[in-house]
């Protein structure tokens, strides 16, 4: 369970780290904690997985990764763990999730693939398909970003 103090720490960290010499001292001061107490608590929240990581979120489109495809796969249910694990091993795959099939939707494994062009994304998908032995898949290229923000918790 998260304490009230943990929630306050999370709210501070989602607002951003101060751009100053001692950022944790500044946040600690706001929360009436010492720099050391704050660092220890954040370290604990990272260890137990509440904080996934600390650092920068970048706009990858601006860094040359112009194309992204959601590659969706129809994988036999009894193979999903094996195939999902294999796909996660590809460095071009940034996200890999199992999601439920629906009446109009046969795909149960979702991967995000980033490349410098559409052709590159398609080649990556083909390479993965061959490596894991799965051939029922589709690529959904994004054509517009309508919203992208960071989630704000406890507000």
């Amino acid at each position, binding site marked *: 369970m*998260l304490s009230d103090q943990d929630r306050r720490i*999370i709210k501070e*960290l*989602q607002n*951003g*780290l101060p*751009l100053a*010499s*001692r*950022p*944790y*001292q500044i946040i600690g001061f706001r929360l009436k904690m010492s720099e050391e107490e704050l*660092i220890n608590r954040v370290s604990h929240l990272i260890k*137990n*997985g*509440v*904080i*996934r*990581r*600390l*650092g*920068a*979120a*970048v*706009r*990858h489109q*601006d*860094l040359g990764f112009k194309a992204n495809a*959601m590659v969706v796969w129809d994988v036999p249910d009894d193979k*999903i763990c094996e195939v*999902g*694990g294999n*796909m*996660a091993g590809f460095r071009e*795959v*940034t*996200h*890999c*999730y*199992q*999601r*439920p099939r*629906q009446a*109009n*939707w046969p795909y149960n494994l979702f991967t995000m693939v980033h490349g410098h062009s559409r052709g590159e994304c398609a080649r990556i998908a083909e390479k993965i398909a061959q490596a894991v032995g799965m051939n029922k898949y589709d690529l*959904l*290229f*994004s*054509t*517009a*970003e*309508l*919203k*992208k*923000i*960071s*989630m*704000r*918790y406890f*507000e």
Partner: protein
Amino acid sequence: MKTDQIDRKLLNLIQTDFPLSPEPYREIGEALGISEEEVLSRIRSMISNGLIRRLGGIFDSKMLGYHSTLCAMQVDQRRIDEVAAVVNSYPGVTHNYLREHEYNMWFTATAPSKEELDEFIARVKRDTGINEILVLPAQKLFKIRVNFDL
């Protein structure tokens, strides 16, 4: 956007190994052979030109007790703006992309409870008149990598 070699090294470092120690910017500077002041001014300019969206914590929404899902819907080309306005007005919608598929609008929604998430989806259906929304919550996470090698 113009970045030099030091910016790229700096971005790589602060995406993955941001120090949790009293003087993180000085430590980063030491690793890159530049001063703490220069680290701070480079980060400031990459934030102001939008290359860095945010410098802070990235959280596991499930561990915070939140519920989230991916959703997809079929939206007529002429109604994209209007439907996007309904979807995007909810603060828990963090991503919304148009994709080339008959399901062409794909968004993620995060809410403090399952009930609020269901309520949001019902509201989108009601306010847009589009009754079919694919609701595709993650059942198992195999990988999430949010840093990019530069």
